[in-house]
C-alpha cells in the first residue's frame, strides 16, 4: 500500500488508535471496555502501520518482539493474583486502594494490573499474528 494519502494519514491514525486503546483499557475499570478490547484496538493500530510502512518498520518501532510483550502481559496477569496471598485471600482476589494524587482520588488495584496484563497479551499475540500474515504477502 504505497498511496500518498494512506502513508500520510497512517501515523496520525496509529497515534489516535493507540491513545484510544489506552482510554478503553482504563475505562474498563467500571464501564464497558477493558484489556481485551483495548488490546485489539492497539493491535489493529500496529497492523495498519505495518500495511503502510512495511513489517520491519513496525518491528523497529515496537522495539520488543511481540511475543515478548505477550509474555510480559501473561507474567503481569499471573502475578497480579499473588498480592492477595499476603491478606489470606484466594488467588486473584481484587485489592483496592485509592491514594490521592494532585488533589484527585486515583483508584489503583490488582485488577488493573491484571487488565493491563490482558491488554499486553492481546497486543503481543495479535500483533505477531498480523505481522506474520503481512510478511507472507510479499513472498
Amino acid at each position, binding site marked *: 500500500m504505497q498511496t500518498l494519502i494512506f502513508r500520510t494519514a497512517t501515523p496520525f491514525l496509529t497515534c489516535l488508535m493507540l491513545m484510544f486503546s489506552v482510554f478503553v483499557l482504563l475505562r474498563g475499570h467500571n464501564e464497558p471496555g477493558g484489556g*481485551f478490547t483495548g488490546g485489539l484496538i492497539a493491535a489493529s493500530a500496529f497492523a495498519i502501520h505495518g500495511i503502510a510502512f512495511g513489517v520491519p518498520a513496525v518491528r523497529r518501532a515496537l522495539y520488543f518482539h511481540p511475543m515478548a510483550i505477550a509474555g510480559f502481559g501473561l507474567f503481569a496477569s499471573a502475578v497480579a493474583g499473588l498480592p492477595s496471598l499476603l491478606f489470606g485471600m484466594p488467588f486473584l482476589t481484587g485489592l483496592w486502594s485509592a491514594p490521592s494524587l494532585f488533589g484527585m482520588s486515583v483508584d489503583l488495584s490488582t485488577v488493573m494490573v491484571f487488565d493491563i496484563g490482558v491488554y499486553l497479551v492481546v497486543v503481543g*499475540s495479535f500483533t505477531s*499474528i498480523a505481522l*506474520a500474515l503481512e510478511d507472507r504477502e510479499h513472498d
Partner: protein
Amino acid sequence: MEAVFAILVGLFFAASIYLMLSRHIIRILLGVVLFGNAVNLLIFTNGRIMREVPPIIAEGLDVPAGAVANPLPQALILTAIVISFSFFAFLLVLAYRAYQEIGTDDTDGMRVAEPADDGLPPMGY
C-alpha cells in the same frame, strides 16, 4: 424465540459437518469455523434469550433491581471465540504450509507421515 435459534444452530451444524466430510483441507477448515460458530450460538441459546436490561448494578445497591440478562453465556462465548479464532489462524497457516510442502490439499494424498508402502517388520533374521 429459542426454537428459531435451535433450528438455526441445527442448520449451522448440518452445513459444517457436510463441509468437514470433504476430502479437501480448505473445505474442512471452513467446516471447522462454521462448527465453532454453531457452538457459540448454541451456548448463547442455552443461556436463554430474553429482552432484559444489561446486568449492571446501579449505584448504592447490592443486587440488581429487577430482572437482568444473563451475562455468563456471553463470557463463555467470548472465551470460545478467542480460542477458536486463534486456532483458526494457526490451522490456516498450517494448511498453507502443508500445501506448500506436500503439494496437495487432498487428504487422501497426504501420506507422508503414514506411507502406504510401509511394509511389515522383518519376520526373521
